[in-house]
């Protein structure tokens, strides 16, 4: 047994890995290591880039989604004197669009920027504007009409504005159906609500007639029809809201 072992060992002991074989293999392994490391690095860089792109996409999507939410109006405010202006308000109470519904309204919006501020700030800015103030005289009437699921809250907040109260202005609420109908007639829904109210007393009145009238004139006609002859303030409800909404 040991003799056989000795013979095998003796026969094979000179079979050895040569220096070249070891050196070449070590060189090959180092080259492979470098290649692998570069691959891993590239893979890491690739993964980092992918993560960065994913994060950017998430932000873009979130941003796009957030922007969609931001720009989507949930409430509308019609501000009528003679200038008729409508504000679209998002869920953050920010004005996302403003549109004039007659020449004076369009003209005002050329001078006053009302977008991307709260609707209370927009109303305040409008009332403080010198150009707009020209329409606010003792014979005029400022009427603010709100279409919103939270119209009561919005009207209360508007009525708390000192400038608004000083003008003895009036607030009403309306609805989207009335607003859509008003827009078909190229009229602000605040003025259209007043028209609808007047038309209940005066069947001869038309939308075209109201186009040529200020909101104050329509309000005065309503008062006349209602048989009241007192001052504007006595006509207002205690909280400044109208009990009559523009439903029809």
């Amino acid at each position, binding site marked *: 047994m040991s003799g*056989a072992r000795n013979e*095998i*060992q*003796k*026969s*094979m002991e000179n079979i050895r890995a040569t220096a070249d*074989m070891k050196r070449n293999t070590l060189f090959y392994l180092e080259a492979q*290591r470098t290649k*692998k490391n570069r691959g891993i690095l590239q893979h890491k860089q690739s993964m980092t880039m992918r993560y960065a792109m994913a994060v950017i996409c998430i932000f873009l999507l979130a941003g796009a989604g957030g922007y969609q939410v931001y720009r989507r109006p949930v409430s509308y405010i019609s501000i009528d004197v003679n200038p008729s202006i409508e504000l679209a308000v998002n869920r953050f109470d920010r004005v996302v669009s403003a549109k004039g519904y007659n020449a004076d309204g369009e003209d005002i919006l050329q001078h006053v920027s009302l977008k991307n501020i709260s609707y209370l700030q927009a109303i305040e800015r409008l009332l403080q504007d010198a150009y707009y103030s020209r329409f606010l005289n003792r014979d005029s009437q400022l009427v603010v009409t709100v279409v919103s699921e939270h119209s009561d809250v919005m009207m209360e907040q508007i009525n708390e504005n000192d400038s608004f109260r000083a003008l003895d202005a009036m607030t009403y609420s309306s609805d989207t159906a009335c607003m859509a109908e008003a827009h078909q007639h190229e009229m602000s829904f605040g003025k259209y609500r007043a028209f609808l109210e007047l038309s209940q007393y005066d069947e001869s009145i038309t939308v075209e007639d109201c186009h040529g009238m200020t909101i104050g004139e329509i309000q005065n006609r309503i008062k006349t029809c209602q048989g009241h002859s007192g001052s504007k303030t006595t006509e207002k409800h205690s909280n400044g809201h109208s009990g009559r909404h523009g439903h029809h």
Partner: protein
Amino acid sequence: MKSTEDVNRVMEAYADMVRRICFVHLKNRHDTEDVFQNVYMKYLLYEGSFESSEHERAWFVRVTINACTDWLRALSRRKWVPLDALAEEGTVLDDPAKEVLEAVLKLPEKYRDVIYLFYYEEYTAVEIAKILGKKENTVYTWLSRAKDILREKLGGEWS
């Protein structure tokens, strides 16, 4: 991935053994060099750890045998006898050693492994069974048959 220090260490420790296992399986130096590199490449990429130096040595034996087998299978050369390798080593071998090696290399492949591992690396049959993933009785049988063949050819100590 194993460190450069580890690779250098196992190169010194197992290079000759890996070379000998390749020698008993493969036809020529080129094949040996390729399989030799493959074995060390497997080590470089091996993520596991070894419990002991014996464990590590057995890993090299098993991986080298498998690498040789895979190499031969890939080349569809399983039936040849690696005498070319012997011819390449002829310059460093004396006649008695060459005769023994020639007899060993003419053994069927499975016998070559057990003869080499049993006589040269001095593994027990139990250890060889574990390394090769065979039953102990199979290893005993292979050893017995391999010794019978060598005894027939070489006589002498094998008788």
